[in-house]
């Protein structure tokens, strides 16, 4: 029971880390520019993730590594490029005057809509799924929530 609670806490903290990541990257973008902010974040992230890989290797934890079918298509190796762009765009959006919670909610709408679109077409090698009317209720729900967050702020 305690172990399970720890996983819940860790996942919640993971979300907190993401919000903090966007906030501090945006702060860096204000001092420099969005591209430099993404570059700094990726540079530091690369060093830290390398350390984590070393720790993983030293502890012999090989969860999720499929050694039998190690075939990585070239296009998959370029996954870091859209990631770099998301950091640039996120810092531009947060620094535009939209506050952090609004920015995150709106990006979530885009994620969900594009996710449904990707599944309908089977993009990026993911499994195709038949999309029904209920799927459109989801972005509507999230967009309604985002609208309430945007327009529900107190006037001070």
């Amino acid at each position, binding site marked *: 029971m305690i172990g399970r609670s720890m*996983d819940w806490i860790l*996942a*919640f*903290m993971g*979300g907190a*880390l*993401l*919000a*903090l*990541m966007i906030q*501090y990257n945006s702060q*860096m973008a204000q*001092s*420099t520019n969005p*591209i*430099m902010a*993404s*570059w*700094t974040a*990726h540079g*530091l*992230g*690369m060093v830290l*993730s390398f350390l*984590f890989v070393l720790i993983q290797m030293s502890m012999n934890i090989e969860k*999720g590594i499929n050694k039998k*079918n190690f075939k*990585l298509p070239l296009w998959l190796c370029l*996954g*870091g*490029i*859209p*990631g*770099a762009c*998301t950091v640039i*765009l996120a810092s*531009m*959006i947060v620094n535009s005057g939209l*506050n952090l*919670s609004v920015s*995150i909610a*709106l*990006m*979530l*709408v*885009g*994620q*969900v809509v*594009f996710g449904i679109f*990707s599944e309908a077409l089977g993009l990026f*090698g993911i499994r195709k*799924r038949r999309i*029904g009317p209920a799927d459109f*209720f989801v972005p*509507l*729900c*999230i967009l309604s*929530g985002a609208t309430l*967050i945007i327009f*529900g702020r107190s006037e001070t």
Partner: protein
Amino acid sequence: MTFFIVLAFFNGAVISSSRTLNGQMSSQIGPLHASFWNHGVGFAFLTAVLCLTGQWNTLGLLAAPRSSYLGGVFGALFVAVSSFAFPRLGATHAALLVISGQMCTAMLIDWDKKGTGPTLIQCLGVILVLFGVYLTRILKPTSEGEPDEA
């Protein structure tokens, strides 16, 4: 402001593609290796862009508050934390908890910056967003939890 709202939607689409690509790579080489690779490719790409556009701002980098360097640290930490917890939780719980953590923390940060707390309507908005995320998991086929950066 409308332009940035549309840009936020577009960035959501880019985040979704990035997350899918990272997930595919994670299933092949593990999330921590994939994280290192993606950070490295992103860093190389941005170095090239900065060299081409000449947008280096070393003075700004040195003058930036120390806390602003934490963005990259938190990103890498997220992958490490989630690669440990997500497979044990499953995709539905993991997504809900991550989004909950994101939205709650974002509202706290906004509260700290602006000095005014969230209104009841904004809290209702967060609940609606979480409900929408919950629906995405119900409608999707179940899959192994994977770390992804939103």
